[in-house]
């Protein structure tokens, strides 16, 4: 763990520890009540989920076309984080929906898009885990296709959902980009940075151990 990672983790930890008080102190939303508070975790997770997907796709492209071996580690690390932050997004979303629309899942456009993108990265991890030798390259192809797919998923799901008569949909809540929200975004982002670089380094070290193991045998 580098010093930077330690600082990031310590800061993120401290910020997340005091986050409940800050969120508690934020203005009480009148229609949604207490459930609105989940938004302070939901939105940062959703943003980082998308960021992780972008990093995974970009790193995969660099691995595939630039033949940069390190990039595979970054792609894998980002893909795992995409799945983790995706889960947070997908769990906190329906909690919100339950209160706003009375049911857990309403095929809300954004939530559905998130689900599809999340599935792409779960598929990526399954391939990496069970694909056997050579699955690093195949995975890179998958992640690249996944990233290229984001706009298509977004447009198609949006049009699909908005062209249907919707009875019980409350439009997205008016949100004041208040201090508490930015506070949470910063905390989550620091956590994300630390996890990403630590996981990528772990992967680099694993590759090095493999190399050493192979070299040892040569001697």
């Amino acid at each position, binding site marked *: 763990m580098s010093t930077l990672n330690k600082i990031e983790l310590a800061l993120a930890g401290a910020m997340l520890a005091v986050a409940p008080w800050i969120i508690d102190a934020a203005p009480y939303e009148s229609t949604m009540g207490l459930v609105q508070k989940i938004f302070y975790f939901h939105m940062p997770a959703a943003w980082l989920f998308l960021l992780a997907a972008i990093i995974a796709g970009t790193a995969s492209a660099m691995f595939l076309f630039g033949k940069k071996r390190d990039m595979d580690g970054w792609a894998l690390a980002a893909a795992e984080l995409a799945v983790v932050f995706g889960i947070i997004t997908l769990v906190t979303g329906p909690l919100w929906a339950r209160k706003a629309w009375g049911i857990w899942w309403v095929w809300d456009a954004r939530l559905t898009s998130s689900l599809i993108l999340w599935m792409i990265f779960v598929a990526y991890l399954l391939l990496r885990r069970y*694909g056997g030798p050579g699955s690093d390259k195949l995975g890179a192809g998958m992640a690249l296709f996944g990233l290229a797919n984001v706009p298509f998923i977004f447009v*198609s799901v949006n049009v699909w959902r908005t062209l249907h008569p919707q009875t019980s949909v409350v439009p997205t809540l008016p949100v004041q980009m208040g201090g508490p929200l930015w506070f949470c975004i910063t905390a989550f982002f620091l956590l994300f940075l630390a996890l990403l670089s630590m996981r990528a380094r772990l992967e680099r070290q694993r590759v090095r151990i493999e190399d050493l193991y192979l070299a040892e045998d040569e001697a």
Partner: protein
Amino acid sequence: MKGFFRVAWLVVRKDMMVEARSLEVVSTTLFFALTVVLVFAFGLVREGTPVGDVSAAILWIATAFSGTLALGRTFERERQADTLRALMLAPADRPAIYAGKLAGMLLLMALVELVLVPLVGLLFQAPIVAYPWHLAALLLAGTTGFAAVGTLFAAMLVRARSRDVMLPILLYPITVPVMIAGVRGTAAIFQGTPDPDLARFWIALLLFFDVVFVTLALWTFEPVMTE
């Protein structure tokens, strides 16, 4: 460029010759498509009439499922005598080999759809002749998008472990936009008051998807295929 099309054509013709001899992929895929339609009919037809606008959905689900089966079989065939390696060994443009395999898949799936569409029209009273050009464009553009991604994935999975499971796992999430566009576009022309403009929007989206993913697949084929 001339060399590209020549090689692609050679691969397509070879695939057609192989298929003409055995008829294995065509016959099994067609029968499977029929089975899928039937299974959905049991679930979605109440008292002799289909529930809601399910005919479009059934058409596309049957296409996607049987397409997956055909992709798996086609590349299993190239794996058996290691002929995919022989193709990669030839001094031809490798993306041209991809293009040839894709064209072969499209021909095969077009054949399946030629049977599927009338079948869905017959069994679910879908107005398949109301907007024939819209329907044809949707099927062509949608199938191209599905097969473009599918052919690349099936080719790269040839040397992977547990490839039979991996193909649908990787392919379906990526082709969600194709399924949505295909189903909604088809439903738009099948519904009580048809909406051809909406269908046209979905056709445009599919074409855009095709351009992006065919380009991307041609581009990634060489690096993912070199072990």
